[in-house]
């Protein structure tokens, strides 16, 4: 998976309440969720984000609630990949389960500013800041997680497992 887009950079501890406030959870329509993505943190995000853009954040991205609406809102807002210094545990699993690409790459986060043009190769773990010419490498997924992604995610894995039982 290769993506290219503009970077939107935020700070640490971006929680799922600001990613998608609970007052919008009365809908599970991805387009409706996307329309309110990050609005309490940056009201201009939804109007400026373009398909393919890259979300960049510091430590503990996605902390807080277990709401799977968070990765869904981010993905359907047009974000192709989230690059962070670290991810909160539940968000990490939810992103993998819902198919939102994520990359843990502290150096890249330090080397990317809002508006920079970024190209990523998720499978290779490569991140290129085209604006500065710097390139970075993300931490690889553990083998088990990689296998699950290759197998089509948890839904497909569970289907197969139930057939086996």
């Amino acid at each position, binding site marked *: 998976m290769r993506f290219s887009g503009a970077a939107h950079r935020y700070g640490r501890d971006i929680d799922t309440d600001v990613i998608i406030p609970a007052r919008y959870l009365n809908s599970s329509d991805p387009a409706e969720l996307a329309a309110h993505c990050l609005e309490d943190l940056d009201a201009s995000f939804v109007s400026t984000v373009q398909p393919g853009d890259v979300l960049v954040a510091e430590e503990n991205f996605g*902390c807080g609630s*277990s709401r799977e609406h968070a990765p869904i809102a981010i993905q359907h807002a047009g974000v192709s990949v989230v690059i962070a210094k670290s991810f909160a545990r539940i968000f990490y699993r939810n992103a993998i389960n819902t198919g939102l690409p994520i990359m843990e790459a502290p150096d890249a986060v330090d080397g990317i500013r809002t508006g920079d043009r970024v190209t990523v190769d998720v499978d290779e773990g490569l991140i290129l800041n085209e604006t500065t010419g710097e390139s970075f490498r993300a931490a690889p997924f553990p083998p088990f997680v990689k296998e699950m992604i290759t197998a089509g995610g948890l839904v497909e894995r569970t289907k197969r497992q139930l057939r086996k039982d």
Partner: protein
Amino acid sequence: MSTIPGKTIAEKIFSAHSGTDAYAGDIVVADVDFVMGQDGTTPLAIRALENMGVDEVFDPARVAVVMDHSSPSPIEGVSALHTMMREFGKKTGAKVYDVGCGVCHQLIPEAGHVVPGDLMVGCDSHTCTYGAVNVFSTGVGSTDGAAAMASGKLWFKVPDTMKVTYTGELRPGVFSKDLILALAGKIGADGATYMALEFHGPVIDALSVDARMTISNMAIEVGAKAGLMRADAKTLAWYEGRGDRAPQPVDPDADAVYASELVLDASAVGPQVAKPHAVDNVSPIEEVAGTPIAQGYIGTCTNGRLEDLEIAASILRGRKVHPDVRLIIAPASKQILLDAMEAGYIRDLVEAGAVMVSPGCGPCVGTHNGVPSDGENVISTANRNFKGRMGNSNAFIYLGSPAAVAASVIEGVITDPRQYFKGGE
């Protein structure tokens, strides 16, 4: 000479549930004893089950869905989601806790759905609450929840464990909420990411089960996967008459290997407050005393239990909530509401000026029951004060103990509760 390393509580529970000799770092597929979802997350789990082509759950007696976050429904979108949950219950036989039953994290242990030694997952981040009764319980998203509902299994990375020991004793006017806020302030919102916490020490032993749950509930606020405690005589007494499975308490080995160990002197902890907009933005209450407040909230899976209402009632009895302040109270379950009525706490609180709302999450998550206005300060017993959490991103949320909230709503400003306790300052 063989040296088989000892195990933490987490390693023992994962070993028992995966049929492997599990240690931290291992990835295991484990049998779960129970799976829970709430009204914010269950609809997506139902959709994930449909995508899996599954129309039944692995064991209807081991799955429950709870309407607590927006309950009773404030808006037709939620009403439709509640209908979906009721139909799911009828179709699969899963237990449905309808509006007014209470917060999932009170109901699941209260009904004995989980017992000491269990492994369970819930589609809510505060599922870590039952670590207080020796259950490895952890929050997952809806797709993980659906996989567990369908198969009774889920994959886990066995976590490293951070051992937290509270020494000394709690001073008058200081509560378990203050202990966990002090920890969040010390190690930060990602201080225990991917780890299990194990809480030990004489202070934990001396706490009631209610008060222990407050601590385990907030394990997620430091990034932890679980907040585990031993099951002692108090735990087992609490379980008498609850559920139909026997507790299987799990103690850590004396030579268990911990990733880190922290010792905190509870005697040195005073009332704590988490300031807007982060749970680890903690300071002693003295530093924010005098800050005006417009609303107080006592309730939630953190502090909506009988002991919490008792503490609030003891302060508010015969006194009045400040005329410029609203006090909202949501008991954590119907049973707690009934017990608090029986004990007279509800009369004390309502006479003082409190507004009682339905057992459930109340205004904690910003969907109903008391959304603050622009610029208003709220002091709450909840576990999160993120920007916009209570439904208005222009409001400011402070977190404290039920005593701190009760003392503050009387004065109309954030107030140190120790003046109400003999031997407090």
